């Protein structure tokens, strides 16, 4: 032990520096392990959920559950246990039970036989079997609240009387005598989710009326079975089940925005199915619709981005650990040889290496843990909240073990190096770690890392996508660095030949540029690589946000869109004119393909004529007829890029007999200048062009290829529709400045109740700042970690003392003849200039690439991109802050090198 003590004591200064380096890289590794906190499901939901649902205000509230169930069974008595089943499954799979509403029911239609409802058009009734829990909830809102159970009548009519009804259930007659009534108004307003689900189911029954309020009889499920089992299950028929579930917001966020949302939901479904099978083997239930989950690509991108940042920082950290320990061993090489020559047995040497590794790790990690709390608190300046929780103790432990393993591996490798040094004179004088490790093992190690990360991430595809992205970034970074080095090389050559020609001495500055060529190249590569990562994330976040925003604007056609019936257009327009924030507006009318019901009406293209068809028509229908006042419409979009509106023709004012059609018509064989007739040739139109991406009408090229849509004159379309007495909607596109959107919407909202406006869609700027928020906050943390990495590299470069440094020796050569400080200052400024120039080339290239990718290849389906002022501000911030950081590091390096003492550089150690 005394020998071990002397060994450490003899290199205590070196050890201290190494411990500081290990501490700093441990700190970066610990903090980067916390990054997933910045993209937890609640954060992602808060900042990104708006991307998938426009901000809208509707006259009618849309009630959508998160999950809809569908199934069948021979015995639905388990319905009473369904809620508990789902709650248990939720706890097992998600670890939480916060359900807003949940229901499972069975229903069967029946016929009235002799009862006379108030409205003779209703010849049918619906029988519904529900859980006792739900029955009791309904009871609270029923009139004639008799305490006993029994049939509860759901009726449209407030003054409905309780009387016996004779009904036929699958041709078996029976009577029903309700003892409670609940009205549809009460039912719809107090149980909106059930109502929505139930009415939706009924609307799909054959011959159902579109707005039907069938009378319904609700029974507790056991009574329902007792009364109607014979009828329903005759001929081996099933009870058909429907249901829905809505999570509370907190759980909904976890379910929708976790990285393994898909797997969790699948497990949730499986567990419910298994539990139900255990309750009732004949029951089959599945998730019919899952509305809550649709974000997997974005979640995957975000998680892969974070994982990529982690891999980069951990990679840098491991690299620094390896080179720092290797340098320490190399500096101490001869002392280590002394130990080797002494014949110390290998178990003893192994133990001392183990203890030394342990000591370095314990002290380094201890140093890191002292600093981690202040560093996490510091993040609050950027509104970033990172906390070290109990769960992170595992991360800290794993990181510490990996660091220990790395240090120990370098120690062991160095022992083998010493052995080779002694016995093979051809060995290199200075130790390079893992030189003898076969190259293929590095590949195996990288694959192993990916395998481990996949097991943790459970999403290989996104990790592979990100790996490809990283490789492409590295290639771009390397090309930029090569290009910059070439420029520097050519400049140097040019300078040298000029000086030679003029027979002049080369300057000390030139000497420094030549001597420190390798140092500059390494620095250029490392800094450019770091900035490639930061810039790519930066541009992705900002351009993606702008692209999403542009896509919204193109899809909606303006910052705000109103939908209304055609009845009050004059009053609506009068109101709009009186809102000063509205810069301009335009309107269009839109007739959608209606429904598949046999009693509905649609337009369809039959040969070259647009005819009216009913529900029995089996061919393709015209999806939309859109009427615009073309002069007004083009004036509204005056400042927009019209390059991609049409594939043929130019957007211009159209006469009544001119139309624009989508590209699907081209597939049918129509060309520009061809004619299409309407209503048995009563009118004839000329096709003036084919729509590609038309703002407010089609939002992507593929959209145009999938739909039959026609743009025609507004007044003509209105007159056609009114003659046919077809319903249609009018849409107003409003243009307002972004800061006035919310106040304008507030002024428009009263029109919902006063003027029949049914829906308001508006661009919510907060939504698009969400993408920036999600991607840029981790970058802010990573920049700080890069600064810590830089500090550790700075200490590493001075690990054996400034005067042993090769940089100092080079400066010393200059110092023999002249003052070295001036050329040193100039050199460092030139270095900052070169590194920053490389960044500008890289950033310009990446920016151009992003732009081309988003617009040229139609990634967003649009061929233009509106750059927001947020993006411009962020770019400006980056362009200013990076050179400032470079200058700071240059100043630090200057103050470090200016203190060198010639007599200490060129003095033998004696």
């Amino acid at each position: 032990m005394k020998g071990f003590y002397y060994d450490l004591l003899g290199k205590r200064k070196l050890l201290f520096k190494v411990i500081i380096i290990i501490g700093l890289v441990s700190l970066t590794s610990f903090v980067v392990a916390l990054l997933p906190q910045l993209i937890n499901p609640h954060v992602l939901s808060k900042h990104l959920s708006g991307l998938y649902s426009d901000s809208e205000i509707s006259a009618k509230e849309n009630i959508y559950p998160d999950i809809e169930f569908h199934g069948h069974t021979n015995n639905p008595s388990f319905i009473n246990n369904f809620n508990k089943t789902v709650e248990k499954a939720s706890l097992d799979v998600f670890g939480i039970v916060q359900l807003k509403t949940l229901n499972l029911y069975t229903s069967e239609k029946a016929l009235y036989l002799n009862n006379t409802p108030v409205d003779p058009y209703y010849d049918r009734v619906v029988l519904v079997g529900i859980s006792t829990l739900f029955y009791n909830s309904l009871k609270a809102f029923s009139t004639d609240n008799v305490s006993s159970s029994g049939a509860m009548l759901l009726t449209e009519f407030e003054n409905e009387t309780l009387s016996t009804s004779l009904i036929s259930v699958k041709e078996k007659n029976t009577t029903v005598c309700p003892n409670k009534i609940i009205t549809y108004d009460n039912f719809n307003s107090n149980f909106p989710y059930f109502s929505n689900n139930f009415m939706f189911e009924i609307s799909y029954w054959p011959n159902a009326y579109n707005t039907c309020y069938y009378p319904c009889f609700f029974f507790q499920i056991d009574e329902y079975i007792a009364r109607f089992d014979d009828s329903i299950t005759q001929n081996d028929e099933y009870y058909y089940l429907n249901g829905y579930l809505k999570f509370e917001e907190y759980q909904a966020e976890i379910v929708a925005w976790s990285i393994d949302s898909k797997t969790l939901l699948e497990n949730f479904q499986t567990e419910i199915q298994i539990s139900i099978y255990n309750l009732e083997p004949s029951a089959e239930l599945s998730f019919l619709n899952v509305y809550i989950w649709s974000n997997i690509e974005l979640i995957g991108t975000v998680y892969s981005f974070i994982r990529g940042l982690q891999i980069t920082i951990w990679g840098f950290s491991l690299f620094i650990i390896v080179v720092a320990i290797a340098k320490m061993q190399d500096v101490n090489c001869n002392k280590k040889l002394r130990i080797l020559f002494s014949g110390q047995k290998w178990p003893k040497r192994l133990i001392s290496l183990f203890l030394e590794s342990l000591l370095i790790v314990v002290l380094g990690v201890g140093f890191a843990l002292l600093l981690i709390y202040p560093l996490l608190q510091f993040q609050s300046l950027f509104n970033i909240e990172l906390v070290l929780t109990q769960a992170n103790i595992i991360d800290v432990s794993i990181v510490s073990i990996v660091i220990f393993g790395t240090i120990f591996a370098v120690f062991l490798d160095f022992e083998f190096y010493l052995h080779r040094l002694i016995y093979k004179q051809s060995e290199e004088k200075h130790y390079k770690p893992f030189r003898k490790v076969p190259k293929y093992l590095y590949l195996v190690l990288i694959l192993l890392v990916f395998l481990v990360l996949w097991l943790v991430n459970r999403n290989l595809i996104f990790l592979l996508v990100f790996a490809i992205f990283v490789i492409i970034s590295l290639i771009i970074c390397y090309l930029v660095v090569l290009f910059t080095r070439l420029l520097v090389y050519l400049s140097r050559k040019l300078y040298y030949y000029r000086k030679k020609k003029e027979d002049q001495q080369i300057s000390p500055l030139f000497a420094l540029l030549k001597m420190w060529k390798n140092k500059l190249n390494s620095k250029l590569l490392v800094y450019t690589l770091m900035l490639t990562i930061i810039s790519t994330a930066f541009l992705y976040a900002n351009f993606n946000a702008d692209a999403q925003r542009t896509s919204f604007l193109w899809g909606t056609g303006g910052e705000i869109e109103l939908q209304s019936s055609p009845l009050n257009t004059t009053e609506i327009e009068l109101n709009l004119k009186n809102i000063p924030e509205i810069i301009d507006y335009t309107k269009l009318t839109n007739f959608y393909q209606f429904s598949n019901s046999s009693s509905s009406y649609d337009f369809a293209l039959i040969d070259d004529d647009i005819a009216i068809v009913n529900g029995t028509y089996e061919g393709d229908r015209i999806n939309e007829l859109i009427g615009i006042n073309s002069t007004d419409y083009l004036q509204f979009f005056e400042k927009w890029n019209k390059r991609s509106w049409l594939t043929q023709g130019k957007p211009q004012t159209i006469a009544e007999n001119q139309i624009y059609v989508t590209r699907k018509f081209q597939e049918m064989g129509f060309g520009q200048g061809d004619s299409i007739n309407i209503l048995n040739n009563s009118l004839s139109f000329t096709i003036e062009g084919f729509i590609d991406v038309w703002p407010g009408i089609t939002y992507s090229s593929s959209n145009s290829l999938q739909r039959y849509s026609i743009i025609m004159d507004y007044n003509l379309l209105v007159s056609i529709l009114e003659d046919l007495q077809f319903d249609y909607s009018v849409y107003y596109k409003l243009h307002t400045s972004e800061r006035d959107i919310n106040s304008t919407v507030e002024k428009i909202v009263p029109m919902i109740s006063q003027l029949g406006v049914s829906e308001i869609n508006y661009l919510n700027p907060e939504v698009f700042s969400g993408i920036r928020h999600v991607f840029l906050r981790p970058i802010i943390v990573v920049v700080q970690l890069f600064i810590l990495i830089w500090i550790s590299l700075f200490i590493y470069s001075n690990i054996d003392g400034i005067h042993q440094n090769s940089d100092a020796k080079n400066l010393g050569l200059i110092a023999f003849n002249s003052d070295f400080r001036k050329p040193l200052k100039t050199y460092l400024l030139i270095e900052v200039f070169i590194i920053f120039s490389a960044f500008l080339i890289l950033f310009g290239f990446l920016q151009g690439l992003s732009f081309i990718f988003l617009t040229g290849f139609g990634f967003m389906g649009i061929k233009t991109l509106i750059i927001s002022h947020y993006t411009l501000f962020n770019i400006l911030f980056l362009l200013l802050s990076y050179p400032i950081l470079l200058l700071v590091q240059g100043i630090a390096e200057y103050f470090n090198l200016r203190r060198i003492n010639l007599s200490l550089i060129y003095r033998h150690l004696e």
Partner: protein
Amino acid sequence: MKANELTKIFPHPSKDDTNIPLFANASFEMTSDQPNFIIGVSGSGKTTLFRIISSLEPINAGEIFLNELAIHHLKGRNKTKYLSSLGFIDQFPAKYLSLLLTVKQNMDYNLILYSSLQKEEREKRILETARNFEILHLLERKAIHLSGGEMRRLSLACNMIYNPSLILCDEPTSQLDDKTKELIMQSIYKMNELYDALIIIATHDMSIIGKNPTFKIVERRIEKWQ
């Protein structure tokens, strides 16, 4: 030490079928009565000879003995034991010293590494050796604060403290002024008197040879030089 018909051949670095003979049937005999000197031009093989003597370099033919020990046949544990019985001094003694430790600590460290003496015995040995090499007054001084000559004497002391059987010195007086050179040589002669170790010194400096046995490497042979 006795070497018979020593032959060492190196393969040509670039021509596969060509060999470069360094020693061919070289023989010599050295005793520990006086320090032995080896001289030769650069590239003549002084360093290789030292490696052969240290058993770090195999020979192609011949034999070499230290007392009864066949150095050319040493393997495994025997080789390790032999290496631990050697001392080595070169022109940069600070390389092998811990500059942040004191003189006493450096000597103690070497004793711990190369011997199994207990604490009291080590203390005794340190004092005795420090007295022999006239560094007793420097025991508590850090090695980094020593002068060039003092550091050389410390290096000698650290090597002799564990009574090696063989000391190899590579240019021990290099880059020293005459006075310090004399001091170092005096230490070496004293070392020779006090310790029963064979001392072999490789040098270019003819002024330090004196009347000591000197061997010259010439034309792949090692000849006694008069």
